[in-house]
C-alpha cells in the first residue's frame, strides 16, 4: 500500500466525540499515523505478519494503520470505554480485524513474549506527570522487537536518558521530527489550532531471558 493511500484511509476514521482532558485525549492525525507505520514497515519490517499492540489506542488510528499494512494480529488497549467503542466502529468501517482490551496500561501484566511491536501516541504527561514514561516502560517490557512512540521534541534528552537508564531499552533513536496539529479541542485552548514539534522514536528493548 502506498503512503498516500494509507493516509487517505486513516483520514476517514471517526475521532473522539467528547475528548477527556484528564486522559490527554488528542486524535492522532492521519499524516503522522501513516508516516509512523509506513516507516515501521518499510524501513524496519516491524509490521507485516507481526503481532502489534497499540497502547492508549483511543479511536484506533495507529493499530488500524498496522492492520492495513498487513499485521496479523493487532490489539488496541485503552482505559476509556467510549474511545474503544469508536475504535471498534472504525475497524468495522475498514473491514479490519482488530482486538481491543480495556485496561490501564500502567497496571498491565502480560504473559509470554507474543507481541512483536508496540505503537503508541502516549499522553505527553502534561496533565499527569510521567504518564508518557509509564507507557514507555510497559511497552518496552511487552514488545520483543521494537516500540514506536511520539514524544514532544522539547523532552528529547529526557526521553533518551529515561529510556536507556530506566525503561529497559537497548537503543533509542529519533527517526524524524513531525508537526503535530493540535486542534482547538478543549476550553483552555486559546488558539484555533497550534502545531507542536514531536519526535518519532524507535526503541529496541533489551533481549529477554
Amino acid at each position, binding site marked *: 500500500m502506498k503512503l498516500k493511500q494509507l493516509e487517505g484511509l486513516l483520514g476517514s476514521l471517526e475521532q473522539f466525540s467528547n475528548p477527556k482532558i484528564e486522559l490527554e485525549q488528542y486524535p492522532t492525525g492521519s499524516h503522522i499515523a501513516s508516516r509512523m507505520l509506513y516507516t515501521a514497515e518499510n524501513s524496519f519490517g516491524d509490521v507485516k*505478519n507481526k*503481532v502489534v499492540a497499540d497502547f492508549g489506542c483511543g479511536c484506533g488510528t495507529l493499530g488500524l494503520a498496522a492492520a492495513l499494512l498487513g499485521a*496479523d*494480529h493487532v*490489539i488496541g488497549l485503552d*482505559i476509556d*470505554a467510549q474511545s*474503544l467503542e469508536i475504535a*471498534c466502529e472504525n475497524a468495522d468501517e475498514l473491514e479490519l*480485524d482488530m*482486538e*481491543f*482490551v*480495556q*485496561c*490501564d496500561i500502567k*497496571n*498491565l*501484566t*502480560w*504473559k*509470554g*513474549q*507474543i*507481541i512483536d511491536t508496540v505503537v503508541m501516541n502516549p499522553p505527553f504527561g502534561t496533565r499527569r506527570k510521567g504518564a508518557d514514561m509509564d507507557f514507555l516502560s510497559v511497552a518496552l517490557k511487552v514488545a520483543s522487537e521494537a516500540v514506536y512512540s511520539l514524544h514532544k521534541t522539547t523532552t528529547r534528552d529526557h526521553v533518551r536518558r529515561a529510556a536507556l537508564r530506566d525503561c529497559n531499552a537497548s537503543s533509542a533513536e529519533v527517526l524524524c521530527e513531525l508537526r503535530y496539529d493540535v486542534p482547538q479541542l478543549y476550553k483552555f485552548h486559546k488558539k484555533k489550532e497550534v502545531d507542536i514539534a514531536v519526535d518519532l522514536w524507535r526503541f529496541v528493548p533489551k533481549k529477554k531471558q
Partner: protein
Amino acid sequence: MRLLTHNMLSSNIKGVTNGFPLRIEVEKVVEKQVDFNPNFLKNMFSKIDYKALLEASRIMGYAELPDHADPSSLESDDFLRRFHHALLQLHLEEGSLVCPETGRKFPVNKGIPNMLLHEDEV
C-alpha cells in the same frame, strides 16, 4: 476476543502471583473467517501456552485440538488448520474472564474484555 489475546492476558490484581490463564465463562461465542497463514501460525506456536489454548478452545465448544502438540505437529496441514481456527477464528463475544486465584471476574462485552481494576486491587 480471540484466544490468541486470551493467551496473553493475565490477572493483575495486587497480591496475585499466578494470574494465568484466566478461566473463561462463555455466554456467546462467534466465529470470524481469517486468512490462513501457516508461517504466522508456526511462529506463534513457539510463543503461546498450548495448554491454555487447548482448555480455552474446549470451553468455547471447539473440541478438535489434540491433547498434546509439539513442533513436529506443525508439519501436518490438518493440525495447522485446527490451530488456526482455535487461535484466531473463535471469538468470545460475551462472557467473563475469571482470575484463577481470587475468582474475580473480568467481564467481556461485545468482544472487549474489561481488565480495569478497582482502587483496592491496584
